[in-house]
């Protein structure tokens, strides 16, 4: 069954108060993925 975005999910997605905290968390999560290094796939590093 296809997933749908429900009305309550939409309200959360567009609520500035909730989204402010999501904004802080999202920045940290993105930073953890992109800024915590990269390396080789051929050698151990």
């Amino acid at each position: 069954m296809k997933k749908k975005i429900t009305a309550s999910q939409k309200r959360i997605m567009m609520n500035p108060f909730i989204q402010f905290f999501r904004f802080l968390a999202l920045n940290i999560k993105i930073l953890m993925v992109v800024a915590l290094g990269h390396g080789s796939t051929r050698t151990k590093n």
Partner: protein
Amino acid sequence: MSKIVVLGAGIAGHTAATHLRRKLSKEHEIIVVSPNRNYQWVPSNIWVGIGRMNPKDVIFPLEPLYKKSRIEYKQAKVSIFWPEGDLKSRKPFVEIEYVFGEKKGTKEKVEYDFLINATGPKLAFDQTEGLNPGTNKAYSVCTYDHAIHAAEGLKKVMKQAKTATEKINILIGTGHPKATCQGAAFEYILNVENEIRKAGLRDKFNITWISNEYELGDFGMDGMLLSYGNEQLSSKELIEMVFEDRGIDWILGAGVTKIDEGLCTYENLEGETKTISFDFAMLIPAFSGHGFKAFSQNGNDITEKLFKGFMIVDADYTPKPYEEWRVQDWPETYQNPSYKNIFAPGIAFAPPHAISKPRKSPNGRDIFPSPPRTGMPSGITAKLVADNIIHMIKNNTDEIHHRGSLGNMGAACVASAGFGFTKGSAIAITTFPIVPDYQKYPETHGRDIKKTFGEMGLAGHWVKHSLHHAFLWKAKMKPFWYLIPE
């Protein structure tokens, strides 16, 4: 003293040049050769394309910044590579031709000790018949000037819609059977839909996504399995959910072959030739190499030692079927194997193969996305190339110190879904690694599920807007710019 020549001043070239300048003493010469007068923050072109940003918000002139930072700048295009020098000079050089100012049309030889080829892609509109931005009702948002025309075109159809009796058709997606950069088209379609909805005209429009992807959410990366809230969701399900919510139709496995005035012809994976009419289209063209030539010292053509469309680097280019592709095929130093002082970060390097599974129509036409290397990976690979050159110069060694494969690197794509401080939204997707490693992560479609997630909402828009300002701050080399990661 070393002389480092950087070809291109986009995300990769500019990143490499600024890091080299910061970390190398002034006795070392950094020269940037680019035909472009301005730096442009390409990810924000989407907002220029809907008229929510002005071009001046996404660009700044390179010359004053480079002058201030003691980076030599030549507004010119490169044509020929002489990696061994010629019979007159043993020092390697590139032939350039100025494209602006008093020197316009003048050719010059620029010698180097190290060469960074960050020329990015050629926007190959010519590979799709009739696809030329601003003509045949089809537009592009690949550059800021293309995006200006797209915004004007969109404004025109929105005005037309107010009095139209029939629905207006909008078509957005990929304009070539092997085009890449689906992410940009995805952002654009959501922003266009949002603008139309905000104007109260949504019921006057049919909006259709057309793409060479086999499934929604492939993005040229073979799709993703994402953490989404407390559950796991495929990128296909996520994008399908968004399109359903926005009332956007989709056509998949479509290789666009021809654009006529308001008519798009495409071949699908069943081998059928079909058409769809439109009043406004934004189609991403194919990306190709620039067709550079290279010569040996005695004048023999050695183009195949340097180029395979894009520049050859330390990848495994052995042709093999999809089932045998390995993450280790992907390069990690971006160094040319024949000439160790030449590097190609960003989009300029030739990928070993696609990331998405290759598919052909029964007529033999390849219809699948080429691998994306834009944005974040461009910046990261450019910085690591700069760091390797710095290491080689400072330690007088040939040893490569920094490595970064797309198979061991994360990326974030914050796809704008609408503009506005309280009404905006975006879909933030991160992926680790960019190229799936099916051996390391066999259960989660080749990716680390803890670092591969999707999230939707207003916060994503704020992140995207913050990144716009942060990356322009960084590109302008304002105080502590180097603390902002690539």
